[in-house]
């Protein structure tokens, strides 16, 4: 049934692989960094010093150079259509490397690691592994590559979530993450197998052409799409695949929570956009099928449910990490709005929103960590009176929360503005979606502002005087993040251009 390739064919396969490797250098470099970190850990013998974290920081910063060099390379498919290099992928490569760097920086600030674990061991290596996986997720052009890269990210994330292995909450979070992750990726692979059955192809671009040339059974395709959405929806933490999110975000070490809520979610969105824009058909007569639903209506349902559920349930949260978990579910809903628009402007808006979410969410978690270092708690009630004791942290957290609500003059406002204007360019079709988005943002104002309310207007129950200064370096980083959140709210043009640059997908037919 299958014939062995001849010698000449093998030669041409090897030549093609050699050609592709030139376009794969950032990933190879990161894999080497991953191995280097394991060796450094062996040499340092688990001692707690900054050797590992500094190596990771420098290594990740070095990746930027290789990604920059890729900007001048032509967009195209590599490794027999397994992988693509395009502007969209390059945008996300920068995004993930930067989030890896920030994850390392906020891990260095977290004092909980001192008490919970004996050594940092593989922690930084796993952070780098997650960066590799996420970069591959954003660049995959084949269902097999999508599955493999997604599992690389998931497995690293499971271990990072349970990194405090003597802490019951951290272990419980890891178990829940694992079970939900296993089920949803299993469903996703089942969906892939149905698509493979429909088209006999695994490459996204070939799937698209096979579907349009040979036609398909709409019921099977919508079932397969729904199953695939289970996998992607789990990664982005959207309703109804969100059940893991609150427990995992609360139980995981806080830097891991920040990393998961920003980077892993962005990777899910990258996959979602590439898969749905390129592989599954949209528009055209075949698409208006008998059952009357398609993947856009599925995404609309998920998006509306996420915005409403995330914002409403967040109202009665008492733990700040859990509150931010529900807020991240709501933000998945806003980000989906940009994908529903389904044009270059919508993609640009989604990418810009991801950039703003990156700054404000990492900033908020950074302040939460600095506060927890001093008070040992993440409960809303323990934030009372902190505004006077930690003035800079209070101001910074307020700015990040205003940005999360989406009020001017912050970057979060620009992100929401872009998403809603992308919706409104489609005329009155999506007006109601924009209205739901705006109304749920108003609901979110209440629970976000509970935190500054506790910090500034309520008195702390204990009047003991304690040194609450987080230190010089954390103060500088916090102030820088706060400054950037406001700066990009006023001068957003460079980032909007960058997002526009990133909105070009290889193989997309408009």
């Amino acid at each position, binding site marked *: 049934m299958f014939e062995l390739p001849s010698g000449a064919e093998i030669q041409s396969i090897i030549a093609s692989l050699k050609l592709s490797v030139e376009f794969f250098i950032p990933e190879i470099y990161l894999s080497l960094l991953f191995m280097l970190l394991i060796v450094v850990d062996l040499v340092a013998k688990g001692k707690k010093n900054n050797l590992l974290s500094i190596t990771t920081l420098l290594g990740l910063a070095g990746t930027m150079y290789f990604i920059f060099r890729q900007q001048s390379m032509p967009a195209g498919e590599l490794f027999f259509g397994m992988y693509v290099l395009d502007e969209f992928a390059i945008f996300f490569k920068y995004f993930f490397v930067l989030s890896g760097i920030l994850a390392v920086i906020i891990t260095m600030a977290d004092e909980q690691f001192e008490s919970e674990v004996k050594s940092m061991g593989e922690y930084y290596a796993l952070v780098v592994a997650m960066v590799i996986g996420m970069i591959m997720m954003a660049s995959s052009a084949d269902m097999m590559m999508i599955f493999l890269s997604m599992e690389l990210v998931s497995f690293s994330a499971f271990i990072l979530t349970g990194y405090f292995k003597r802490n019951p909450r951290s*272990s419980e979070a890891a*178990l829940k993450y*694992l079970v939900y992750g296993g*089920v949803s990726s299993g469903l996703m*692979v089942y969906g892939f*197998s149905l698509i*493979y*059955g429909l088209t006999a192809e695994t490459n996204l671009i070939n799937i698209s052409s096979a579907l349009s040339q040979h036609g398909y059974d709409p019921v099977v395709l919508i079932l397969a799409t729904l199953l695939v959405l289970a996998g992607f929806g789990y990664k982005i933490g959207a309703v109804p695949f969100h059940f893991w999110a609150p427990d995992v975000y609360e139980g995981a070490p806080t830097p891991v929570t920040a990393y998961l809520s920003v980077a892993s979610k962005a990777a899910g969105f990258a996959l979602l956009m590439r898969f749905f824009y390129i592989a599954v058909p949209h528009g055209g007569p075949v698409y208006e099928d008998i059952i009357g639903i398609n993947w856009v209506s599925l995404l609309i349902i998920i998006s509306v449910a996420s915005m409403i559920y995330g914002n409403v349930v967040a109202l009665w949260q008492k733990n700040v990490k859990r509150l931010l978990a529900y807020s991240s579910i709501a933000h998945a809903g806003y980000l989906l709005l940009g994908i529903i628009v389904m044009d270059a402007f919508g993609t640009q808006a989604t990418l810009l929103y991801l950039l703003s979410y990156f700054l404000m969410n990492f900033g908020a978690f950074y302040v939460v960590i600095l506060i927890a270092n001093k008070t040992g708690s993440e409960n809303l009630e323990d934030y009372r009176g902190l505004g006077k004791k930690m003035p800079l942290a209070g101001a910074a957290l307020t700015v990040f929360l205003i940005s999360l609500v989406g009020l001017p003059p912050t970057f979060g406002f620009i992100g929401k503005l872009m998403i809603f204007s992308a919706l409104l360019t489609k005329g009155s079709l999506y007006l109601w979606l924009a209205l739901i988005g705006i109304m749920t943002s108003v609901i979110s104002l209440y629970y976000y502002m509970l935190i500054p309310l506790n910090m500034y207007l309520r008195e702390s129950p204990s009047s003991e005087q304690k040194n609450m200064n987080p230190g010089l370096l954390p103060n500088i980083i916090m102030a820088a993040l706060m400054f950037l959140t406001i700066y990009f709210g006023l001068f957003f043009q460079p980032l909007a251009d960058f997002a526009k640059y990133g909105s070009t997908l290889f193989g997309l037919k408009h």
Partner: protein
Amino acid sequence: MEHLVPIGLNHYLTISAFLLGFGLFAVMTRKNAIVVLMGVELILNAANINFIAFSKYNGGMGGIMFSLFVIVIAAAEAAIALAIVINIFKIFKSVDVSSIDSMKE
């Protein structure tokens, strides 16, 4: 024996659909974390049967390659899952997923 229907694509797809159903059932109803993970394996193997059956009847190698990778990933997942479950057992003295629920709204 000639009155029996020869085995075709539909037979494979039926078995895989049943496996998927059993897997989901195990994940949703069982309390023991190990059995839940067995349910996850059933789901992955349902997809494997699909891939190999489609590959046989479509005549391509893509599905066979995919199923090989799914097997590898399933093994890696089992290793990580067991490590986490053992750690859970050390802390909670139980692997009952309904009793491991310390975080509440």
